[in-house]
């Protein structure tokens, strides 16, 4: 039986279909989760997609944090379930304090859509274990509020413990230390601004490098261990 990956739809989620396609192409079964759901429908992992949940009022992800489904996801993540947040999903994870730091307005103040060249910094997460550390990948980045910030102590801690997962090679938004994605201490929760789920088909994406993200979690799940 293939792994079941839950994809959350908040009002205002936009890239949920894309996430489902990526999950499907990687050989897993996408399962829709509604923001109001309390149960996680027995999924093995969760994908928080991009978009503008609740219109991104106030701060991106600020309101989504209070949805019912996030309560369940927080609990499941604490118990080791793999969770990835892309773009708005990353913002939701930071707002929910599942990941450190915050995502603020791009330094150049504009929304920008450009393919981003990234370096995968670690394979010690549920979502990157199939990537060779140091691999260069290209994912589309498209956001207005993707500048990663945290205080120096947090940043140092992230570096020291190898929790910077993706780093920009051409920093598109002013993120501190070129950080594009981070993970939690256990390595099961990962957030990143660029979109791996938009890099899964040669016809529609700048690369197919993104397939490795879902493939990684499938390997992780099939081994039944958390690293």
């Amino acid at each position: 039986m293939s792994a079941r990956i839950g994809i959350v739809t908040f009002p205002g989620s936009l890239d949920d279909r894309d996430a489902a396609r990526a999950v499907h192409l990687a050989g897993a079964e996408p399962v829709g989760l509604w923001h109001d759901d309390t149960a996680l429908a027995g999924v093995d992992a969760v994908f928080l997609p991009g978009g503008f949940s609740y219109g991104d009022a106030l701060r991106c992800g600020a309101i989504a944090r209070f949805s019912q489904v996030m309560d369940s996801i927080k609990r499941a993540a604490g118990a080791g379930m793999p969770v990835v947040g892309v773009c708005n999903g990353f913002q939701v994870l930071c707002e929910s304090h599942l990941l450190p730091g915050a995502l603020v307005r791009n330094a150049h103040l504009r929304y920008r859509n450009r393919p981003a060249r990234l370096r995968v910094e670690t394979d010690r997460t549920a979502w990157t274990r199939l990537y060779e550390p140091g691999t260069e990948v290209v994912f589309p980045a498209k956001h207005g509020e993707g500048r990663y910030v945290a205080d120096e102590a947090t940043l140092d801690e992230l570096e020291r413990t190898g929790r910077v997962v993706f780093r920009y090679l051409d920093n598109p938004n002013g993120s501190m230390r070129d950080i594009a994605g981070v993970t939690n201490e256990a390595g099961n929760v990962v957030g990143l601004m660029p979109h791996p789920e938009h890099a899964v088909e040669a016809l529609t994406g700048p690369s197919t490098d993104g397939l490795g993200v879902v493939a990684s979690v499938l390997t992780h799940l099939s081994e039944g261990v958390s690293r």
Partner: protein
Amino acid sequence: MTRDLNVAVDTVGVADATPDEKQPWAELGLKDDEYQRIREILGRRPTQSELAMYSIMWSEHCSYKSSRVHLRQFGQKNPKTPRLLAGIGENAGVVAIDENIAVTFKVESHNHPSFVEPKQGAATGVGGIIRDIIAMGARPIAVMDSLRFGAIDHPDTARVLPGVVDGIGHYGNCVGLPNIGGETYFDPSYQGNPLVNALAVGVLPRARLQSMQASGTGNVVILLGAKTGLDGIGGVSVLGSASFSENAEDDARPAVQVGDPFTEKLLIEVCLELFDAGLVVGVQDLGGAGLTCALSETAAAGDGGMHVDLELVPLRAEGMEPHDILASESQERMLLIVDPAKAEEVLARSHRWGLLATAIGTVTGSGRLVVDFHGQTVVDVPPKSLADEGPVYHRPLAEPNDLGLISVDRAETLPRPATDEEIRQTVLDMAASPNLCDKSWITEQYDSSVFGNTVLATPHDAGVVRLDERTGVGIAISLDGNGRFARLDPYVGAQLSLAEAYRNVAVTGATPIAISDCLNFGSPEDPHVMWQFERAVTGIADGAQKLGIPVTGGNVSFYNQTGRDAIHPTPVLGVLGVIDDVARRIPLGLGKTGDTIALIGTTLDELSGSEWANVVHGHLGGVPPKVDLDHEMKLAELLARLAGTEQLAAAHDLSEGGLAQAMVEAICHSGLGAQILLPEGADPFTYLFSESSGRVLVVIPRGQELAVRTACEQRGLPITPLGVTDANTDGLHLRDHFDIGRAELEAAWKGRIGARLGE
């Protein structure tokens, strides 16, 4: 703020009792005879609410009173095609793609609001066109935008352009629609009247096609979406405003609306869910004229009667009077007609998404649209008199006096660059000019990939979107206008834009099947403008007939005028094509090293109205290039045929800036260089900068040259080999003339918009 409603409301009873009450019909834009006709229709004076409704529905914007007699040509000349499932008169035209899927698309203007408040004006323009697509039963899948501003260095452009782009980006990005293309031009004629035209396209299973009919006596009328506020009712504020507020500043009822793409996204999801569940009998979006338009159009299209209790409309502002509620242009609202047995489910499903839905009335068999407010009747009219029986004008037409002089002032006689060095510099100057330079400063502010079905977007000639992942069937769309050509000859100019949009679609390998248009002109009360309008419409209608594809809908925007100066007549044409398998699309670029570069089409000495004349001489005169639609059809057929083979690696339409600019774009979009040898005897300047239509640059994989040449010859299409693509050539090498390295080309072409706007 709160007022005693019973005292102020002008009811039908009051109107009957006070036939001689003075009414501000002139302030509302009605003519004397129009007001008299309203009185005849009603057999009494209209109430304030009725007066507001007639003034809105009989306005130029809603009634097409000046354009209607000309637009009829579309219906008369449109080729009959079984593909056309819904055409002119519907919210948007619908064309069949195959036996299961149909597509709907439409282009609309939001020019004036975008000048007043660029960000919100443009944003609500996008929001409005998206709702037209939903109203047909379709899921919106992409947007495009066609923009025209004054001179790039004018201070007002620095205000308007970033705001417009921000608005289009914000709305489209937030609502989750990829922006797959558009156009951006600068010309002083648009200084006081920038043009913001937005296109949306949607896809539907053919069985889900919706109608705007309010049919079925007893059916419930439901208002879905945002609350109704005071925005956008500037026009009717002369009604009763004296009593509204003591403070005039406070009472600024803005003509501007603020959009909320988040609510629009919910509207899309809710409407589609309701359509799929078969819960909706009729649907209409609330656009320019709010409830007034939606109520009267659905009632007129249906059984003809409707009763509405206006106090049930959820309001966002206090003290709104009935005519305010009827006229409000608050965004993100739709009107649904629903079987009473299903009304509860409709409300429940809406609320699940967090969307407001309220039953406000019922369909009746009375033949009258009756609107009550707290139990008092404020409107009682035959709905067709509002929606279908507005005034029709036959405005006078006159060719502009200056056209004779302009047409003999030909750009072909202007001084041309004489040396290779001068031509080389001209290539660079043109590439760096506002209309030709790279637009990524704008397009990077738009999401182009959400949905994961975008196969081609900016900077390709047309946007290509996959509709079905299993079959690979998809569509291509291009949006094109050229006000300079249309100023020189509106008939030919409109056809040139049509031909360009058609060719841009064909260049991707798709087969053009339908047209939508947005006609941007000055004041219809100016006979010269009206003449331009008539010529352009005739050009489009004749062109559609010739090309064998129908005009399925569009929009007219008049009064784009500052004082006596009208904008260039600017018909913007959208052409939609279908491609059986998007994997076969032909991209922009240079293919592989060693491929052959060739030009299909004929290059004549045609420089009038060209970008060269504009950039180098600031000149506009002469007659535009010839247009040959027979040739365009053959070209399109050829490209569609070649797209199915291995015979084309890349293709690019030649338009503004001619061959030189097409080469610059192809090189900048590829990693390769190009070695070009012009045909013997060709004048390099003409060859590089002429804007003769019907030309396409093609890149042919090695070994396929003969096959392509044969295919061209069979169709009588001239093809000229120009050179090869080459990984070792740095940029553009024009043998015997000059070289321009990639770095220099890119430095000229890229980064201009931001720099010129002071960023």
